[in-house]
């Protein structure tokens, strides 16, 4: 045992002061920086969500005018996508636990890791500048030619998203190299936890797809500021080309958002059922499979855009293929529970919530992938409900479960189980009350991004708004549960859940370089025998 550990030194008190945090190269501290940033952004994006739902409580203007509504939905979307869900799991939980899962001291490029956090901060600051120029009202998709002619700070949001893209690319790069080069002795690819497989697949997407978004956003900026005709038909450009470029990134981005969540769920289900995962290789390879196929499905966002019918049918078919590995994962998780020893702590509740909501998100995904059916649902509330079931019901549930699961390891303290369960109940019920009615609204034909709607849609919108307020209360309580746990929680043992992955073999919170001695791995990650 080294001297520093004997003195009770860990990564949190290794160095002191704000400056030591802002200049740290420690992957764990950078993970915590991401945690704070993402939580702040989530609070801002969530506030916009509450404003949107409150406005939609009844038909006609309630608390804002059409311009303010369009800005709110733009900022809600852009913040939640670029600043919360994309960095949410990889850059926060992944940064902290990928090296520990591999038995490494840090990521391969600690300095680049810190730069990636600063890219996110600088990108967010640039986005904020748009507020000086009347904000932005294009929606997070920046569709041309509206995004070219609209007279406000859209350029700043676009440039901010461009800079934040580098944060994502650099994190992905780091994870790929770390996974290849820094595995502990005996840590073969098939001994890696499934969380690492999920992050690795995600990292490939981040590195290959994000540059396309960067280029697209730069072209958009060139068009807005210098009048270069690329997407605007008035200048000889093609607005549908923008949609191809945009979704070539943004569809893989959907899997950047969901694959890490699937990784977290694999960890939670094994840990709380004390059982080896069912079908390790199937889950691992399905992550890779989803990542590969995700590059060839972007056209399903464009079934009504004017792309050719043949292209639409092809994209519909390939999209169906994504359903297969996704179904495999779901069945394997359920099978893992069979003959387990299951304990209902909050992390597992969130994982079960994930499975419940993700299944509904999945079957409605098949409806949307079916080209004939998609035409009616396209750009209605059916789509809004579907992707919230996947992104919120999937990714956010996994983040919440992951935070509760790893909180004792990250801070050496336990959260309050009773209140954590209350947050689960509020978020889970509130979520269904908010978004299930939106499937019905979409089937009835209510288009999305509507500031005002026909009276026929009013009662379901009211229900939806009540649900949103319930989710809001749930997340406010969750914030208190987490903050109180960090500062006042009971001391946690090194392995409170009895889990088998490597991070639980070291102290809580972990020492400066994770392990006092480099671990030697002799078996798989879930050896509950």
């Amino acid at each position: 045992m080294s001297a520093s550990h004997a003195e009770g030194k860990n990564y949190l008190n290794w160095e002191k002061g704000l400056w030591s945090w802002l200049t740290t190269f420690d992957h764990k501290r950078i993970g915590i920086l991401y945690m704070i940033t993402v939580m702040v952004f989530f609070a801002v994006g969530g506030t916009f969500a509450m404003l949107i739902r409150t406005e939609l409580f009844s038909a006609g203007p309630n608390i804002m005018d059409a311009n303010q509504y369009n800005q709110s939905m733009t900022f809600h979307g852009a913040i939640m996508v670029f600043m919360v869900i994309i960095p949410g799991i990889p850059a926060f939980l992944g940064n902290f636990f990928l090296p520990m899962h591999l038995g490494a001291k840090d990521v391969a490029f600690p300095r680049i890791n810190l730069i990636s956090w600063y890219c996110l901060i600088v990108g967010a600051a640039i986005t904020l500048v748009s507020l000086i120029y009347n904000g932005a009202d294009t929606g997070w998709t920046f569709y041309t030619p509206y995004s070219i002619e609209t007279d406000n700070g859209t350029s700043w949001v676009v440039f901010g998203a461009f800079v934040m893209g580098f944060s994502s690319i650099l994190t992905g790069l780091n994870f790929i190299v770390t996974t290849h080069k820094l595995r502990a002795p005996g840590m073969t690819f098939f001994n890696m936890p499934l969380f690492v497989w999920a992050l690795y697949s995600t990292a490939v997407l981040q590195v290959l797809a994000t540059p396309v978004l960067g280029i697209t956003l730069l072209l958009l900026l060139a068009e807005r500021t210098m009048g270069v005709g690329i997407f605007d038909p008035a200048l000889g450009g093609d607005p549908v080309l923008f949609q191809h470029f945009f979704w070539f990134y943004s569809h893989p981005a959907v899997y950047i958002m969901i694959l890490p969540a699937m990784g977290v769920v694999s960890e939670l289900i094994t840990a709380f059922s004390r059982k080896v995962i069912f079908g390790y290789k199937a889950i691992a390879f399905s992550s890779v499979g989803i990542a590969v196929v995700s590059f060839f499905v972007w056209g399903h966002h464009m079934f009504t855009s004017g792309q050719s019918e043949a292209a639409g049918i092809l994209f519909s078919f390939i999209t169906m293929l994504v359903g297969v590995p996704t179904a495999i994962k779901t069945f394997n998780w359920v099978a893992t529970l069979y003959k387990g020893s299951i304990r209902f702590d909050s992390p597992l509740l969130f994982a079960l919530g994930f499975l419940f909501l993700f299944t509904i998100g999945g079957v409605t995904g098949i409806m949307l992938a079916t080209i004939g059916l998609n035409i009616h649902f396209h750009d209605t509330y059916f789509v809004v409900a579907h992707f919230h079931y996947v992104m919120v019901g999937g990714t956010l549930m996994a983040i919440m479960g992951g935070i509760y699961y790893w909180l004792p390891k990250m801070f050496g303290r336990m959260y309050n189980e009773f209140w954590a369960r209350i947050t689960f109940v509020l978020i889970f019920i509130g979520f269904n009350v908010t978004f299930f009615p939106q499937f019905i609204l979409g089937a009835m034909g209510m288009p999305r991004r509507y500031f005002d709607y026909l009276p026929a849609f009013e009662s379901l919108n009211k229900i939806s708004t009540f649900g949103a307020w319930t989710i809001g209360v749930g997340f406010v309580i969750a914030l208190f549960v987490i903050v109180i746990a960090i500062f006042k929680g009971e001391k946690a043992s090194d392995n409170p859940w009895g889990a088998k992955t490597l991070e639980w073999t070291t102290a809580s919170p972990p020492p400066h370089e994770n392990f006092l001695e480099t671990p030697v791995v002799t078996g798989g990650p879930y050896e509950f025998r």
Partner: protein
Amino acid sequence: MFWLNKAHASTFMPPQGTEIATQYDSLYEFIVIASLISCVLVIGGLAMFVLKYKRKSETDKTAYITHDTRLEFAWSFIPFVIFLVVFGWGTYIYVQMRKAPDNAFEVHTFGQKWNWDFVYKSGKKSSGLMVVPVNTPIKLIISSRDVLHSFYVPAFRIKQDAVPGRYTKLWFEANKVGDYQVFCTEYCGKDHSNMLAKIKVVTNEEFEEWLQNNPYKGLAATEIGAQVYAAKCVACHQKSAEQASSIAPSFLNLFGKTRQFADGSSTTADENYIRESILNPNAKVAKRISGEAFSPIMPAFAGQLSDEELMGIIEFLKTLKE
């Protein structure tokens, strides 16, 4: 079958206005039922396992089951087959949805912020209202005069983006007389949610009569102007005093007044100025009361208004005095 009717009633789909909509709903009901069964299987299995295998003591032994190739093949292959069936069925509907009969009656459709215009080959124009005959294939040739829009008729289960600089196509054959709602479903700015229109499906006789009919017959010039104002101008131009938040000049007391422009020049708002401002709005951009120029956002109406309608607006403006 009772439960099938029940399922049908609970799909919440809009009324079926076309044969395609009926076919669409059959596939939709099939998928909803298949999805319900899958959800019950997955979530039911989940609920059963978590209740049955609840942890009893901290020393519980769990089964060590790493995989089962046959089971895993089954639950990969069976969904794959179901997906293929759904894909084939959906594609069959889509192909019919897209392929207009050769004898279809064509209507040119234009989207612009924030209304829909319909132009018939006979020269008849209509704004916000498309009248079509029942049981006749109608083909829309859709374009946009500014940004992206999307033409969506829930009762027909069809939708097509209106793209500036190119023509897109859509067709339908309504099999019931009645009014059908049209929405814009591609976000297009401030009044996106007010960009509504109606399709009025009528009998062939009524349609012929409507097509021949001059809507302005017997109306005074100011009444024609009031109708054009209500259809084309009211979204931006108010009849009340200008507010700080107004996006366009108010029409109140406009006629005959001296107008100040962004480039510093000025002119009297006479008939020629009004005509130019409608046909080529950016030729002279007016200033707000505060002195700041309005944004040049008004689309040009050249070619969209008849001389009769222009005359009507001019006379209508003259009546807006306080």
